[in-house]
Each structure stands twice: as C-alpha cells, then as structure tokens.
C-alpha cells in the first residue's frame, strides 16, 4: 500500500483524478437551465408549442417505452451481456399485453407483457450465458424471432375476435390515470399567461400532474428501484462486478453465470413492459409493428446515458420530447434550428478558446452559421427532415457534452465458468 494508490503486484493503480460529482444540485441546475433556454426560445421564435403542457405530456408518453427498454439494456449490460434483442423482447411484450389484457384485464396485460419479455430474455440468456453464443448474433436472432412469434400468435389468437385480426388485437381496457384536480387547472391558468419562465415551469408541472398513467408512475419507480438495487445493495455490487471483471468476481465466490442469467431475464421483463406500455397506455391495442424500432432507441438512450439510470432517463426524455414536438408539427422544429445554431456557435467558441481546437471549433461555427442562415431563410423545415429531429438533437447533445462514456469493462465478452483459473 502506498499513499497515492493501491498496489497490485508490482503495478501501481493510480487514484482516479477527482471529478465533480453530478448530484441532485447539478441536475436541478441543468433542469432549470434547460427550461430557461426553452423559455427564451419560445419568446424569441413565437413557437408556443415548444413548452406547452400538451407537448410535454406527449413527451412523457413517448419517453416511457424508450426508457423501459433502455432500463432493460442497463440491467443486462451492467452484468456484461450486450442486449441488442430489446426490440424483439418489446414486440413479445406488446403481444402479451394484447392477449392477456383483452382476456383478463389491463393489469394482467401488464404482467403478460413482462412475462413475454422475460421469455425473450430467457432465450437470450440461454444462448449467451449458457452456450456462449455471440451476444450480437443472439440479439439479432431474438429480434427476428420476436417479430415472427408475435405475428404468428396474433394471427392465431386475435383472428375472429370482435375488433381483432391478424395484425391487431381487440381493444384493451385502459389502466387508471391520475390528475391532481385543483392543481392541474390552476397551473393551466398560469401556463396560458405566457409569462417568461413562470409559464414554462407551470407547463412542466402541469404535464407531471395531469392524466399521468399508473404505468408511467410504475416506470419511474422502476428507475429508482434499479438505481438502488444496482448501486446501493450487495446484490447489485455483485451484479456489476460480473460485468466489470467476471474473473475477479468468480474468484471472490460470486456465481457469475447465475447473475448474468438473472440480469438478462430481468432485462427482458423490463423491455417487455416497455412494449406493454405501448399496447396498454399509448394505444389500447396490440398492433403489428407498433414498437417501430424503440428497442434500438432505448439501447441508444442507455449508451447516451453512460450506462447509468439518471443519464438514461435524460436520454429517453430528450428523445421523447423531440419526437413529440416533431410529431405535433407546427413551427417548433423550425424554432429548434435557431437553438441548434446558437449551440453550435457556442461549442465552436468553447473549443477554440478553452481547448485550442481550432479546426473542430471552426467547423462547428461554420455549421452553426449555416443552420442560423437556414432558420432565417425559410419559414418551415421540410416535412422530409422534421422526422430526424430526435436523432440530430441527440448527436448534438453528445457532441456538446463531449464523449466521456465508459461501458462496463467486460461488456459483450463471453464468459465461461472457471475461465480465470
């Protein structure tokens, strides 16, 4: 042992350089800053829908399935298994929600979605953990199997039911949703006043307390629970150690394969519930192809969030929000051009002044000026491009936040029992 770091054998492992911890205070500063920026943008461009409670409520609805899929990915990858099969597990979940939801009520639908997703997770676990199949190969297979199985089951079980057919289930009863009566209306009044910042905060709060589905609340609780289990419990420490260094974990007596297996099955259940949300809350119906690639986006949101629940939540929210405003149409996407332009120029200046990266900085400024020119030159963004808003935004934020991502050290590696001996 030395004063500066831990010595393993002859190699000195230096302490990590001290970094600011991103705690509750930093998060609230980011949140308030984001609302302020949006508020300014709303006043400057006159795009009212940019911070309306309707847009934010839609954003929550679109973010939950992405977030749940990402949460599934988080469990699996923290245990060292890459799960690109989230999409397939979500599809199984949509069918489970449709079938059990129709026959036994929406709560059974939610459970059915979890169980169907877990089945998908089970296949992935058996393939990757027990048989050591490459994680990507198995994941892609799950996506194809999930699609095929759901189609087959839908044709088999929904055909001939009232309102059902080979591509859709009969309608499912709704799950309860909550509105805080007086508060929602009061905030609505403040929102309509169009005050700088105050109205936008009111809109955010109103979206959070109007017609919130019980499944949304459960999803938020699952995020908190995941954070607590994985980062605050001994079980979670072992699970993460399996993803970081399975050899070390096994030498300390952790049953590596069991933890990996469990994590992948839980992962499937969460992705399945994400699919269940689509069928039960977003649509009240199982519909062929309704996941629309959200499993992949969930995976991207998880990577965006640096394999952490908080970051993942931010990524899912960003995706949900940008997708909601582009789907709701109007001038919002056009207003975003101005925001992009300002952000890009700011990044450019920052890169040149602080990091002396003249080429990158110059490039960012040039692109920023071009985007700004685009904003002033046209009245609306062509429809062909508005659909890309979520992706462009994510790329920009990633560039702005500078890449500091670190995935679990043994993520994606195949581990066989007793490998380290």
């Amino acid at each position, binding site marked *: 042992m030395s004063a500066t770091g831990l010595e393993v054998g002859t190699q000195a492992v230096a302490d990590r350089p001290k970094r600011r911890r991103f705690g509750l205070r930093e998060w609230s500063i980011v949140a308030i800053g984001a609302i302020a920026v949006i508020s300014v943008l709303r006043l400057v461009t006159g795009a009212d*829908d940019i911070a*309306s409670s*309707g*847009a934010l409520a*839609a954003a929550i*609805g*679109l973010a939950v*399935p992405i977030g749940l899929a990402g949460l599934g990915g988080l469990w699996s990858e923290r245990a060292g298994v890459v799960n690109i099969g989230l999409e397939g597990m979500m599809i199984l979940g949509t069918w489970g929600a449709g079938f*059990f939801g129709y*026959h*036994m009520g929406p709560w*059974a639908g939610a459970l059915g979605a979890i169980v169907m997703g877990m089945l998908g997770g089970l296949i992935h676990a058996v393939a990757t953990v027990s048989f050591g199949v490459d994680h990507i190969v198995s994941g892609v297979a799950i996506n194809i199997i999930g*699609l095929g199985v759901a*189609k087959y089951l839908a*044709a*088999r*079980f929904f*055909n*001939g*039911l009232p*309102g*059902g*057919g*080979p*591509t*859709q289930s*009969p*309608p499912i009863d709704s799950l309860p949703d909550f509105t805080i009566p007086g508060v929602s209306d009061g905030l609505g009044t403040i929102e309509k006043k169009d005050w700088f910042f105050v109205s936008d905060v009111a809109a955010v709060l109103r979206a959070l307390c109007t017609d919130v589905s019980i499944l949304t609340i459960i999803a938020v609780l699952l995020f908190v629970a995941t954070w607590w289990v994985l980062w605050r419990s001994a079980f979670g420490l072992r699970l993460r150690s399996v993803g970081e260094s399975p050899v070390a974990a096994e030498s300390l007596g952790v049953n590596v394969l069991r933890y990996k297996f469990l994590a992948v099955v839980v992962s499937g259940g969460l992705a399945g519930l994400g699919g269940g949300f*689509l069928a039960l809350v*977003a*649509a*009240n*119906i199982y*519909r*062929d*192809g*309704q996941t*629309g*690639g959200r499993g992949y986006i969930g995976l991207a949101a998880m990577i965006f969030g640096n394999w952490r629940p908080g970051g993942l939540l931010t990524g899912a929210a960003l995706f949900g929000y940008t*997708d*909601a405003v582009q*789907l*709701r*149409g*109007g001038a919002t996407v056009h207003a975003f051009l101005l925001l992009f332009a300002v952000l890009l120029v700011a990044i450019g200046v920052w890169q040149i002044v602080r990091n002396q990266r003249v080429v990158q900085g110059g490039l960012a400024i040039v692109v920023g000026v071009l985007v700004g020119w685009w904003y002033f030159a046209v009245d609306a963004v062509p*429809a*062909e491009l508005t*659909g890309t808003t979520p992706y462009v935004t994510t790329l920009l934020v990633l560039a702005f936040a500078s890449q500091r991502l670190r995935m679990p050290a043994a993520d994606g590696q195949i581990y066989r029992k007793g490998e380290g001996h």
Partner: protein
Amino acid sequence: MKVAAVMSVAALTLAACGDSGNGSGSSSSSSSTTKKSDVKVGMAYDVGGRGDQSFNDSAAAGLDKAKSELGVDTKEAAAVNGENEAAREERLQQLIDAGYTHVVAVGFAYAKSVGKAAKDNPEVHFAIVDDASDDSKGANVDQITFAENEGSFLVGAAAALKSKTGHIGFVGGVNVPLIKKFEAGYIAGAKAVNPAIKIDSQYLTQPPDFSGFGDPAKGKTAADGMYQKGADVVYHAAGGSGGGVFTAAKAAGKLAIGVDSDQALTAPEAVRSVIMTSMIKKVDVAVYDFIKSASEGKELTGNNIYDLKAGGVDYSTTGGQIDDIKSKLDDYKAKIVSGEIKVPVTP
C-alpha cells in the same frame, strides 16, 4: 378460474380457426359442383392480409363476392412486413405455378413484381390495386387506381362544414405520393367551403420507414397536438395508426374522420361516436369487376380509375352525424362528377 377461462377461450378460438378452414375448403369444392368457372383467382395481399379491417379486407370482400356469385376457385397469400422484392415475385410466381389464371396483387408495393411476372407469364392476367406506374404496365395488367382525392374532397368539405373553430387537421401515415393525394383532396374540399380555414397537416414517418401505418402511439401524439392547438376535426389516412387518432379525438371530446372503409362500423366500439364520417375506397368493387369481366371472357387491362363518377370512392353516413350537411356534400359530389370541380392530386 381465470386461467381456466382463458384456456377455454383459447380452445374455442382454435376450434373456430379449424371451422373456418374446413368451411372454406368445403365451399370451394361445392362451388366446383354447382357452378364451374374457368377463372382461377390467386390473390396476394399487402402487409396485414385478410382481417386487417381495412384495405386488405376490402379486397377480400370483393374476392368473396366473386367466389360465391361466380363460383371461381381462389387462393390467397399475404405479404410480411419489411420483405424484399424477391419475396413478392416469389409469391406471385407460386400462385401462377399453382395454375391460377388471374392474379390480384393488393398494394403499390407489388408494382415491380407484377410488371415482371406479367412479362414472364403473358398468358396470365394480373390486377394491381393502387398503382398505375410504368413499373406494372403490361398488355395483361389491370391497373386499378382510385380517385382518393375526390373522396377526400368530400370529407374535407364535411370537416369544414362541421368545424366550429375554423381549424381542422390531417394525419398522414407515411409521406408518399398516394397519401399526399388524400391530403390534397381534403385541403381542396375544406377550402371550397371556407377559404380562410386553417389546416394542420402532419405525416408520422418518412419513407422508407413505413412504421407510420402501424404505430397508434404516433397517431395519437400528432392528433393530440392538433386538438390542443384548436382543431376540432381531424382526418387520418394512416392505416393502423388511425386508432390513435380516434383515441385522441375521444379524449379531447372532438371529431375525427375515418378512411378506406366505414370505420364507424369497424373501429373499437368506444371510439365510434367520434367518427363523423369516413372516406370509403371501394377496393372490393374493383376486384369484383376484374374477376367478373374475366369470367365473361372480357379481360380488363390498362389503367382503370375508380373515381367518384364510377362509384369507386364515397363518404359514409353511419351514425347520422352528417345528415344535416348531406345535401351540401351531394352538391359537391355532383359538381365533381360533372367535371365542374377539378380536384388536385398534390397539395
């Protein structure tokens, strides 16, 4: 108990499936004894197939009518989501190899494969629904298209007549020329009634991403936005995503317009009350025409346009919500039929 209930329901469903299978088998054999026709019709559905409560079901209705009235032999096959060109060619070729003399391909996705199959098999007759491009052109091809813009004009006029806020919306599934035709007619119809009307248009996805035809969550988000901004009638041409539009209308207490079939009859019961009318596209009529004239020895070829005049498109009156404006709509209908009003095909 509940598990037992589900099991019994599942068993019933299985039994029902078995029954329908037997039924179709026996009916085709009985038809051969009663009325035999030389025409054998193979039908290749678009994604969704029979039972999609929309487009494919409409084509299936035409086929069923031909089967019971003309006694033709039939065989059906359906496409799967995201399949490639080769899979569609293969499907058509299989029908031809099985001895089917007339092949109906449902949906513009088949354009290229029909063109190819028609060249390779000059003795077989083809019909393709929703395509009139050069890809599927041939001496033995009946290109069936509809004047969706004319039908959409009528529901656009209905929307404008029913709107109290002077603000209506349109939700398109995927931004393709076919759906733009719906939008163009809708806008023209609404503007004919009220030139100052405000119309929000939104497409859910851009090609080649066709998920916009099957994603109710997106349909709901788009329609929610329109209703919250003041629109009180929204027309959808978004296939399966339209269910989300109806849900949004129900939640907002406003109105919606259905598409392709009379959706006030086919949509889930809970949302039927918000569907004031639907733009009906009579694929069944066109399919039946093709088979009927074939059985009479007269093959249809070239581009046959089913417009308002030919009764290929129309609006529905189920629910009685537009009874008060029916005379005005029928005036517009007469003007379109007589050619006094020309409805544009692009917005």
